[in-house]
């Protein structure tokens, strides 16, 4: 029986090759895209779950009330970890965690590595796979380090890394460390990525800060009891907050800060490990949002949805050709369930073929997909039986639904009517029309989203950020020499070069450089009886000139003014924050004793990512603060030559360190990775949606024309013109597109405006975005349907009438 079904199913498929091809192409493309997209989504969702204790690991974050509302941060003071461990009984293990570059040297080799400075329990909390070790406890003593396999390869080549001694540059002196553990390379789906791990106590800032509750500079991870509830953590930390933050709380009360709904000013809370990849503290609380992932999944579903709509419409439309068979089978004794099963199994054949081709395509396209969408996804992650089983279950479910509907329709037909080949027209077209409206609505939503996203991305890329991003190169100062010294050497080295306009430095980069690091440092002080917070930036001379940042009032730092190292330059946002009529009379307090007068005010520029509005910023020029990044402004001509000149100058000054310079506009583009990824996904999604809708529309118009051959013939005999017949046949489809536009446009508008809400710098939504999307859908419908209908309308009526 089954064999018979498959046989007749296969022969039916082969009989109408164009149809089968359209169906299978549509479905397999949809499956391939859906597999890739959902893999990317599941990859994101699987972040950090590979640790053995993943569900009991949390990051500690602090929520503080401020005059502007709550603020949240994961940055903590050094003594907190120890106090937490002793005061909160439900904490099993705790570790501090600080990520910073450090210079490693082994024999002549010198490397700047991405280091985590952590406590002993770090590797008991996080179970990174270990590839070889000397002792069971990783980082058991302060002079041992753990490195990854890739680092071992870089430092020692093929020789056994265990027990080797490397030197790490700490506070200007080289300290020896012994390699105790080699960790397998860190999985791609880990939020914590590093090249080497050192004990926290070895961090250069540890000694001065180990008792200080004012300096927040590292994060804390805890592993809790299996039974403890994360909500109760806050309550159990109240007493330690009251004990250790007396002064801060008193200041807040004085500044008129309002306590939160719990009546607290400072609260410690827990953020689950699995949420870390998705968290955002911008609004003053831990906002966990997996929206991007769900968006990707939604697009995958939409694409499958479109393909399924095609399939349903095509099978229902085609079924008219199989009426006779259905009737005959019924007279020969087939029951409803026989017929249902038969037609369903035919759909199953198509689906199995399509899924097979789709899976093959997705494997083929995986590499391109990874580069296009900048994801590190691989088949390994989804190779677990659970995922595969749910995938198979999902496919079966879809097949049942999509193949089942036409099968049900067909199996219910009346015997005599179907023998005569008559199909009741009533409900069927309504379902088809509804499905096509949905299909077009999806396409219109995706097209208009593409337009909006592209506009926003273009806007952000080309926005005037308040500094010169085309002509400035930035690079990390990660060699052994002091930053100020390196910059002076560079100035000397590049002096004669007419293309080099100016050289400066700062302790932070603009955008994201090739070293991939990004941070923010904020400090607060008491100004006229209230707390003022500002971003901190240490700069070298010529910073404003190099970056073309405009001065509004006063002056910038100049050589020859000895007092400049005790003065500050602030931005307009900071001037507003200080609230002085003449900002040049204001000052910034650094220690409890010294006030630094403001000597200049600069125009606001986007020193932080475009997700944030421009915050207060204070610039310092003081050799006590280290510089981490150099900036060179070059002439607009010969950009590549200038970059090479800087590179070779760097090589002569820091021969052991690799030059990682890049233009600032590249750095800015790197910060827009999320938007870029989303734009690519949506654009690709809409392209595929359009293509699939075209296939479906084409097939439907093919069948519709075939069904109305007689009508066309009769109309022509009576005297209808080609154009009136084309219009007659196309009009129905255009009506559907119009309805879908009316449905889709407001939905797209709402979606896009809620997406744009997240951005302080954004484009205005304009009606033409949506109108264009509608016109595209309209044009596609006319092209696809029109070509078929014109052909049908031009046919000789004698032929079409004879066919009846």
């Amino acid at each position: 029986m089954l064999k018979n079904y498959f046989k007749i199913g296969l022969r039916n498929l082969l009989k109408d090759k164009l149809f089968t091809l359209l169906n299978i192409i549509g479905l397999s493309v949809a499956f391939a895209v859906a597999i890739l997209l959902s893999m990317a989504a599941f990859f994101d969702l699987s972040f950090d779950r590979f640790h053995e204790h993943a569900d009991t690991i949390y990051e500690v974050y602090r929520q503080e009330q401020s005059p502007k509302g709550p603020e949240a941060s994961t940055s903590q003071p050094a003594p907190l970890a120890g106090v937490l461990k002793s005061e909160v009984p439900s904490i099993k293990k705790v570790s501090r965690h600080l990520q910073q570059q450090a210079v490693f040297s082994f024999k002549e080799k010198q490397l700047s590595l991405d280091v985590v400075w952590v406590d002993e329990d770090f590797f008991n909390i996080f179970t990174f796979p270990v590839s070889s070790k000397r002792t069971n406890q990783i980082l058991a003593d302060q002079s041992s380090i753990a490195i990854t396999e890739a680092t071992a390869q870089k430092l020692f080549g093929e020789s056994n890394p265990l027990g080797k001694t490397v030197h790490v540059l700490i506070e200007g002196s080289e300290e020896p460390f012994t390699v105790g553990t080699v960790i397998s390379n860190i999985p791609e789906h880990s939020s914590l990525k590093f090249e080497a791990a050192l004990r926290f106590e070895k961090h250069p800032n540890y000694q001065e800060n180990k008792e200080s509750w004012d300096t927040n500079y590292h994060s804390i991870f805890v592993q809790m009891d299996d039974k403890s509830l994360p909500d109760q953590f806050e309550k159990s930390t109240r007493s330690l907050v009251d004990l250790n933050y007396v002064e801060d709380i008193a200041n807040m009360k004085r500044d008129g800060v309002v306590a939160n709904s719990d009546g607290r000013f400072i609260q410690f809370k827990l953020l689950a490990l699995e949420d870390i990849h998705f968290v955002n503290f911008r609004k003053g609380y831990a906002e966990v949002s997996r929206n991007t992932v769900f968006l990707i999944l939604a697009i995958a579903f939409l694409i499958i949805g479109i393909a399924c709509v095609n399939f349903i419409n095509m099978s229902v439309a085609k079924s008219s050709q199989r009426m006779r068979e259905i009737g005959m089978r019924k007279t020969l004794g087939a029951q409803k369930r026989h017929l249902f099963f038969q037609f369903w199994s035919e759909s199953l054949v198509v689906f199995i073929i399509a899924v097979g081709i789709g899976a093959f395509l997705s494997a083929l396209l995986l590499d391109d997909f990874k580069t296009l969408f900048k994801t590190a996804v691989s088949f390994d992650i989804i190779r677990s039986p659970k995922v595969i089983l749910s995938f198979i279950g999902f496919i079966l479910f879809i097949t049942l639904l999509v193949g089942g509907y036409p099968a049900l329709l067909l199996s219910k037909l009346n015997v005599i009517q179907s023998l005569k080949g008559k199909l009741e027209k009533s409900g069927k077209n309504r379902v088809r029309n509804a499905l096509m409206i949905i299909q077009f609505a999806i396409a219109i939503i995706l097209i208009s989203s593409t337009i909006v996203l592209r506009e926003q991305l273009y806007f952000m890329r080309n926005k005037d950020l308040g500094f010169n991003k085309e002509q400035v190169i930035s690079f990390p100062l990660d060699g052994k020499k002091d930053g100020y010294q390196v910059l002076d050497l560079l100035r000397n080295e590049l002096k004669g070069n007419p293309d080099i306009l100016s050289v400066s430095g700062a302790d932070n980069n603009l955008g994201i450089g090739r070293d991939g690091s990004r941070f923010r440092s904020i400090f607060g002080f008491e100004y006229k009886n209230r707390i003022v917070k500002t971003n901190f930036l240490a700069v070298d001379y010529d910073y404003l000139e190099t970056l073309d940042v405009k001065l509004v009032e006063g002056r910038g730092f100049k050589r020859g003014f000895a007092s400049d190292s005790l003065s500050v330059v602030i931005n307009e946002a900071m001037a507003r924050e200080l609230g002085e009529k003449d900002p040049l009379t204001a000052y910034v307090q650094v220690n409890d004793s010294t006030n630094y007068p403001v000597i200049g005010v600069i125009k606001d520029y986007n020193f932080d990512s475009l997700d944030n509005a421009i915050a207060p910023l204070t610039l310092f020029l003081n050799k006590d603060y280290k510089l981490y990044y150099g900036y060179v402004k070059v002439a607009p001509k010969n950009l590549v030559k200038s970059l090479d000149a800087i590179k070779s100058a760097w090589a002569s000054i820091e021969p052991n360190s690799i030059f990682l310079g890049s233009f600032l506009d590249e750095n800015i583009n790197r910060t827009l990775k999320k938007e870029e990824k989303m734009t690519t996904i949506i654009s690709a999604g809409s392209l595929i949606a359009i293509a699939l809708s075209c296939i479906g529309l084409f097939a439907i118009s093919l069948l519709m024309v075939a069904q109305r051959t007689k009508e066309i013939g009769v109309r022509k005999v009576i005297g209808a013109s080609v154009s009136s017949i084309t219009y007659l046949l196309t009009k129905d489809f255009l009506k559907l597109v119009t309805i879908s536009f009316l449905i889709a446009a407001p939905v797209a508008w709402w979606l896009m405006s809620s997406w744009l809400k997240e951005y302080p710098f954004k484009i205005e939504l304009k009606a033409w975005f949506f109108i264009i999307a509608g016109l595209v859908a309209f044009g596609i419908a006319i092209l696809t349907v029109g070509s078929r209908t014109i052909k049908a309308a031009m046919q000789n009526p004698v032929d079409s009438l004879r066919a009846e």
Partner: protein
Amino acid sequence: MLLELKNIFKWVNSGGQRVFLLKDINLKVDEGDFISIMGPSGSGKSTLLNVMGMLDGFNEGEYNFLEQSVHTLKEKKRATLYKEYIGFVFQSYHLLDELTVQENLEMPLLYKKFKGSERKAMVADMLDRFNIVGKKDLFPAQLSGGQQQLVGVARALIANPKLILADEPTGNLNSNQSEEIMQLFQQLNKEGVTIIQVTHSEKNAQYGKRIIQLLDGRMV
């Protein structure tokens, strides 16, 4: 007695009026009968055949088939009944285009849960009996009309029905082919199969033992 129709009425409502398709049909068919139903177009011949074949229902009256009252049976029971005892032959053959001759013959057996080996034997038997062994792997489109109808009859017969209902079996055939099919029917009738055929042709009607004339849904 094989079947009995008592006061069968069938009508449709068209434009507020009741249009009768069958009016007060009374008919007894014994096993071994060969009945020809004749009448002009629209006189209800096919409808009557469909009612007897249980493919179509009726509005009034009683229908007993092998001592079972069909009008009281549920759809599913009725299906098993006609599946078991009735074979159909159609004017336009209604062979399945996608299946070969052999597979077309096998199909009714598939719905009756015969084993694979049994099915094969029955199909081979039938091919043999109708002398179409050489054509078993051809598709219907590759056969002449007469050959297609031969397959149609073979298919109707394969499950050993007690009754064959034929709706203008020779309507699409030329006179030679018609002759062959009618002789085949006669032969089958001699072997004990009950046959009811609808026909337009006086000549073919003569093959029947009994002729029923219909006019406007009434037996004349």
